[in-house]
């Protein structure tokens, strides 16, 4: 069983990004991440299957994020995948490359935010976090076929939205 410090080092980025993708805004993210790791610290001795550590942690992130939103009576924030690296004045390539990257991330956020939450969650875990579908099914506690079905529908929806956006861009609409 890994110790708490190792878990923190290994999973901090994952916890942070997952909470952001579950609709926790930048104002609350540090509080939520702290709460997640406090729960992990307290519950670690009760973890039955260390092989499923990542799924277990994701389950804690989901519940903590949901509790945080309920407690503060806030709806999930509109999904924004823009992070610190997208702020002006930060490190990175030249201004043009930064602007292009920012536009891509904004478009990705827009497409994902229009997706139904159940499909989006599967899509993000598979495509952004590169989980396997069985692992996602286990983490979300849904049948394997359901997870595959959601992923298929989410991919189709994503491609349609991307194509629509490109057509709009050519007509002078949003990129």
């Amino acid at each position, binding site marked *: 069983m890994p110790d*708490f*410090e190792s878990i*923190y*080092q290994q999973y*901090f*980025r994952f916890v*942070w*990004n997952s909470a*952001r*993708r579950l609709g926790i805004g*930048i*104002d*609350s993210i*540090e*509080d939520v*991440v*702290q*709460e997640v*790791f*406090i729960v992990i*610290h307290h519950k670690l001795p009760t973890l039955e299957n260390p092989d499923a550590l990542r799924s277990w942690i994701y389950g804690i992130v989901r519940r903590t994020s949901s509790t945080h939103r309920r407690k503060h009576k806030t709806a999930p924030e509109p999904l924004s*995948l*823009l*992070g*610190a*690296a*997208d*702020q*002006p*004045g*930060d*490190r990175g390539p*030249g*201004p*043009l490359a*930064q*602007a292009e*990257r920012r536009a*891509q*991330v904004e*478009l*990705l*956020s827009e*497409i994902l935010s229009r997706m139904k939450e159940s499909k989006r969650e599967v899509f993000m875990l598979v*495509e*952004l976090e590169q989980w396997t579908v069985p692992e996602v099914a286990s983490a979300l506690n849904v049948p394997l076929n359901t997870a*595959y079905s959601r*992923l*298929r529908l989410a*991919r*189709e929806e*994503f*491609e349609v939205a*991307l194509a629509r956006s*490109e057509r709009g861009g050519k007509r002078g609409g949003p990129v």
Partner: protein
Amino acid sequence: MKELSPKARQLIDAGRTATDPTQEERERTLAALRARLGLPLGDGTGSDGIHHPARSPGDPESLPSSPPSTMGPRGLMIPGVVIGGAAILAGILYLSHPLGNEREAASDQAERLPPTDPSAQRDRPKTAQDGAATFQGPDLQRVEADDPAPQNEQELGVQSEPTATTRPLQRSKQAIERKGPDTGGLAEEVTLLSRATSALASGRPQEALVALEEHRRKFPQGVLSQERRSAQAQALCQAGQLDRARAILDALPASSPLAARAALACGFH
């Protein structure tokens, strides 16, 4: 199942790391967790047992040490960001006074109680813990007298108290400050809190209280001030000063997990 197109894949690749936390956010969260959980320091500690965030000009996680170029689309945003940041900061400083609540004031008062006032000790009824307590805390009255009153928050390099009401503002201010090159204040806060929690974990409450008092003097409204109060209450309990510990805990927000943890450690539940 149909795979994603290359264009879709490119978009996803751009978003994969977009929300990544910075190294500073990683370190700050770890420091706060260590303080809240009373954990000893782990890897990344120096010979003095204290965490020193590594910063070098070539470090991709380093904060910018020089102003960014004002050329190009990004550069054009800089004046707006500076002006906006200054306006937000001014708003925070303006709002922080009327929003200061009685609980925070009471907490400050509780923290400032002299630990070993002989008359108070005489007047106070004896408790079971008194017999076991031989702790002599730091001379708070003396250090307060030596400590000039803070002129303003910027001078102190500290941030507003993270109450429920001011937290969003405080986060905005933190976001502004984390863009700046000076992280010395936070690093020192972390150092002091880490020293205190290590001492607490080793059963040395007096040493913990000295570090916490130093933190209170330097960062009365610091980012980790609630963590400080929680640790201070635990140290006082270890030292047998239960009344003072209870006064500090009473001044923390009732819903605070820090207060709950300290109360549990003190056996108040």
